[in-house]
């Protein structure tokens, strides 16, 4: 069992959950993920490792309630326990001194880039963190990211605060203005990551995206997480989660993400807590 040591809602329906998992915290590296089961009857669901504290033996997740499994998790409180948590899984993100690195993020990805921003900066990069949300009140981790990055930019899709538009629009403007970016990393919903790839491709800037298709075991066994990248079929759990945005077959991936949504509607319908049915593509969980 793994105890939740801290939980807070950092924005509406965005929960920061800190869990005691020393074996995971000890080895966690930027870009990796874990698989969590709330209880013995739960699904195995992947979540990105946003942050970790090796001394305290804890890991930090950012979770949005999007379905049965994530609802079970966000209904827990500090002091409660989850049945299973396994990780760190996936190939750690390549951290080197690239020069200037732009991190574009939305939804759960705002949390997910925190660890990446710190590691990239520690490696000697100039780090630009650009985060987007539908509206101003959905932003979170402002102070943390401001401290971790050299430049921090917030956008809102509805224009209610700061720059109006997507985070990738900021990247595009920078590139058009001749600003040199050596690497772009985009973490967020599928649509946002696809846009990121489309924007940077003409500029030839290497762009990595964190793909989170449906997973089951997460350790290289079931093959549910396969994604077409270039000419190859790769597996997000052991080859990913980061892939070259310019090589990913986006339309196939988008369809695979919702492969079980009809089945899951059945699961959602059976609990009494009303669930906000956000667009499936925004779901971190499957």
């Amino acid at each position: 069992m793994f105890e939740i040591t801290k939980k807070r809602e950092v924005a509406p329906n965005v929960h920061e959950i800190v869990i005691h998992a020393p074996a995971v915290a000890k080895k966690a590296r930027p870009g990796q993920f874990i698989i969590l089961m709330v209880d013995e009857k739960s699904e195995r669901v992947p979540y990105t490792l946003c942050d970790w504290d090796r001394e305290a033996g804890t890991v930090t997740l950012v979770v949005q309630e999007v379905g049965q499994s994530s609802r079970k998790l966000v209904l827990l409180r500090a002091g409660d326990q989850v049945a299973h948590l396994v990780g760190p899984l996936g190939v750690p993100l390549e951290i080197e001194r690239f020069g200037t690195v732009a991190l574009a993020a939305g939804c759960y990805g705002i949390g997910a880039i925190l660890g990446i921003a710190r590691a990239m900066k520690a490696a000697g990069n100039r780090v630009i963190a650009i985060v987007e949300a539908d509206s101003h009140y959905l932003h979170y981790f402002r102070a943390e990211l401001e401290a971790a990055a050299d430049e921090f930019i917030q956008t809102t899709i509805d224009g209610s605060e700061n720059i109006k538009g997507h985070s990738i629009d900021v990247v595009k403007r920078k590139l058009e203005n001749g600003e040199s970016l050596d690497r772009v990393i985009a973490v967020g919903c599928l649509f946002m990551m696809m846009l990121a790839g489309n924007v940077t491709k003409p500029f030839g800037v290497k762009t990595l995206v964190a793909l989170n298709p449906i997973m089951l075991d997460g350790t290289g066994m079931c093959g549910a997480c396969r994604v077409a990248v270039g000419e190859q079929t790769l597996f997000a759990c052991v080859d990913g989660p980061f892939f070259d945005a310019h090589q990913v077959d986006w339309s196939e991936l988008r369809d695979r993400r919702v492969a079980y949504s009809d089945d899951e509607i059945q699961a959602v319908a059976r609990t009494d807590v009303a669930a906000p049915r956000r667009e499936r593509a925004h779901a971190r969980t499957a």
Partner: protein
Amino acid sequence: MATVTKKKEIPRQPMPEQDPEDRVGNFDEVPYGFTEELATLEAQRCILCKNAKCVAACPVNIDIPGFVALIQQGKFLEAARRIKQDNALPAVCGRVCPQEEQCEGSCVIGIKHAPVAIGRLERFAADYERRMGAVTIPEIPPKTGKRVAVVGAGPAGLTVAGDMILKGHEVTVFEALQGPGGVLMYGIPEFRLPKEIVRAEVDYLKQLGVEFVMDYVVGRNSTIRELLDEEGYHTVFIGTGAGLPSFMEVPGENLIGVYSANEYLTRANLMKAYLFPEYDTPPIRRQRVAVIGGGNVAMDSARTALRLGGDVTVVYRRAREQMPARAEEVHHAEQEGVKFMLLNNPTRVVGDQHHRVVGMECIRMELGEPDDSGRRRPVAVKGSEFVMDLDTVIVAIGNKPNPLVPRTTPELKTTKWGTVVADAKTMATSIPGVFAGGDIVSGAATVILAMGQARLAARAMDAYLHGDSVANPAADSP
């Protein structure tokens, strides 16, 4: 019954089983197993050969005449204990071993009559002991102070754990999934191997003192090196089993509705998707299902799909005689209503505009000259393509070995297929003190072969811990 005196007059006893029409509607075990009377009668058929060929044909060399003789005498508990001297998982093996190729395949009675039903007798003895609550803990020798790490809690890992704890060593088993059992839990369905039996066999190992650590990924949480150098283990066994599924490499294989058997079965078995929504993982419940392949995994997938309400066809590119599945599994599948399209090979999966499967194009095959495996090679019949109307394709054509340990252990020698190189007699790998067995070494094989390799490994690991030198494949490059 007792009036029958001539052994050869007793026919091979059939095992009572659930009616096919009933069982397609549930996930309960299909065969009920022998009663005491049936087991005694079947055991009478054995002539208790002195130099028994069945023992030699068993990968773990169970004393078959020995335990069958005990069943003849009505000493069922003693029979179970006799089996357990050589096999830590008899209730499992009695159900899933390919006996027709092993013990029963070499039974002398089988030359003129049907062979003695050794597998059913093994199952009976193990079930009897469990049902009576008479499982006893053997005496364990004094602790040696040596620590053994077993990576993976599947059939190979469980066997090594059982053997090593009985030799007085401390044993820790690391498992990435939420519970022990490996393929016995995620792969083989409830109706063929009730999970309660796997749990009972694991509980037995726990009672012997084996420690199990779940949710622990060797390769990520600790490397093999760290287990040896930092965490105080004296020897390591790698039994990480099957990995990424193989696909056919035909167009359309990433369409929605194409699943690996690994995914399909893991959902149903490990995650209990057939009990959805009591369990949260949704099952794949579709109408028209094709299963590609002719092995046990294909049969398990087909019979699972049938129980989830589908119309199921097995598509296999060779002929019936060449199907690698156990004869009993094919028979059960057929009885339950699985259709077989033999000598057909998929060439393309057809999808709609939403990337969902709507059909599969196949080409007819005919048998040509024998290939390397001695089986007649299937050859495509030109122009014979046709399209099957489907919504689901389950690909059950095998796995690659699990990549996690090899990828994180650079000094571990592997083959070009990704399997770990191990000495055939000792299962020693290229790293001193590290042994391996099961599918991580042999690719995709059976539970009992994995257990046979594990048995060899345990013997060599024990010798290694006592300071004996162990043949190491690092010296001779393949």
